[in-house]
Structures are given as C-alpha cells and as structure tokens.
C-alpha cells in the first residue's frame, strides 16, 4: 500500500483548470478533514455580469469552491493509495448550503471541510467558508459519488 498524497500533489490531480479552478492552496488534509483557500481575483469573468455594476461572487461559485476544496480534494486524498486514482471522477450528487454574507471581489476565503461519511463510494462532507475577517460566509453539506469508469 502506497502513501497518501501531499496537498500539493492533490492540487495537481484536481480535474479543473482556469477559469474554473477555485483552489489556490490546500493547507491541511487528513482522513477526516480538508482545509484550503482561494483568492477571488477582481478580474474573474463572472464579476462582469453578477451583478451589473455591482460585482458579488455568485453563490454557485462559492458552492463550487467549497466542493473543489472540501469534497473533491478530500476524495482524491482518501483514494490516493488506491488503484483507480489515475482516472478518478467525482460527480456532485447533492448540496445543501446557506449563505450568510456576501463575498466581494479580491476576497481571500478559507474553506473547512469535515467528512460526515465515506461509504459505498459516496463522500458526504460538512463544509464552511470563512472570509478574511474569519466570518462564516456560507456553510452546509455537499456530497458526491466516485464514478467507476
């Protein structure tokens, strides 16, 4: 059995690229937890339209950011000593998120994720996002399935 991946190796295995990569750093990964951060640069394309003359980060993007750090990165880490890591695919199956505070351009957010369970190829996590003032901006639960090719 080989070793678990390091956080930097997990980032390189993420199946996303710009402009849809919402992970800058993974700061902590274990069997039960994942932590990471992302800086929402003001140049990001969606700010042009959400909203007109009033840029605010869309809730779906915040959800995506929490899924990439909290669910997919953790999933890759958990499966990093298994054989199917090379062509790993994770499909989002459910989200239940509440949004508490707007995230404006240039904000650096931190995502904290805790595994609720990983059974029968389904990973479900409790996630929350904090802004630079350490206020919770959104939180909830996200689940996905590891897809067999």
């Amino acid at each position, binding site marked *: 059995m080989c070793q678990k991946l390091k956080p930097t190796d997990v980032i390189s295995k993420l199946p996303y690229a710009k402009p849809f990569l919402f992970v800058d750093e993974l700061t902590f990964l274990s069997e039960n937890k994942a932590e990471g951060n992302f800086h929402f640069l003001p140049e990001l394309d969606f700010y042009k339209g959400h909203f007109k003359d009033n840029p605010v980060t869309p809730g779906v993007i915040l959800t995506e950011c929490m899924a990439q750090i909290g669910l997919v990165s953790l999933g890759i880490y958990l499966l990093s000593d298994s054989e199917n890591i090379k062509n790993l695919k994770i499909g989002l199956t459910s989200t239940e998120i509440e949004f508490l505070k707007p995230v404006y351009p240039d904000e650096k957010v931190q995502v904290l994720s805790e595994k609720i369970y990983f059974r029968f190829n*389904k990973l479900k996590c409790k996630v929350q996002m904090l802004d630079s003032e350490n206020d919770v901006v959104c939180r909830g639960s996200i689940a996905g399935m590891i897809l067999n090719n």
Partner: protein
Amino acid sequence: MIKMTDQDIISRLKHIVKPYVQREIGMQDFNKQTDFLKDLEINSANLVDVVLDVEDEFGIEVDNDSMQGMLRVGDAVNIINNKKSIQ
C-alpha cells in the same frame, strides 16, 4: 428478543425511505417487489443514505456486495434477516 416478522421490517423500511422517495404513488403499494430506483425513484446516491439509515435502525453493517444487490424492498428484508441471524 422477539423475532421481527418480515412485515415489521417492511413497515420500518417504509418509514426509512420516505424522505428520499420522489415518486409518492410508489409508496401506496409498498411491498417486497417494490424497486427502490424504478418504483420509488430514489436516486442512487440517496440509496447510500437509505442503507446507512437501515444500518442504524437495525444495528447491522451492510457490506459492498449486499449494497449492490439491494434493488428491491425484498432484497433489503433478506439482508436484514441474514445479518440479524448471525449476530
């Protein structure tokens, strides 16, 4: 301990699956032939939650092979009876 009848198990199963059912009409005739995915339109990801709830409710652990064979209510009844009999 008094042995559970299949009917007891079925009525407890009906209670467990309720929050995940998308096709309500499938609940009207809930029996061993009822197919979780086709008759109740429970999505396959939520079927995992059904199994986890079954584990808690009946105090058993369901393995991967059993999970994959759990297509109908009758399959679940058999799994529960088998696990209970070896406890």
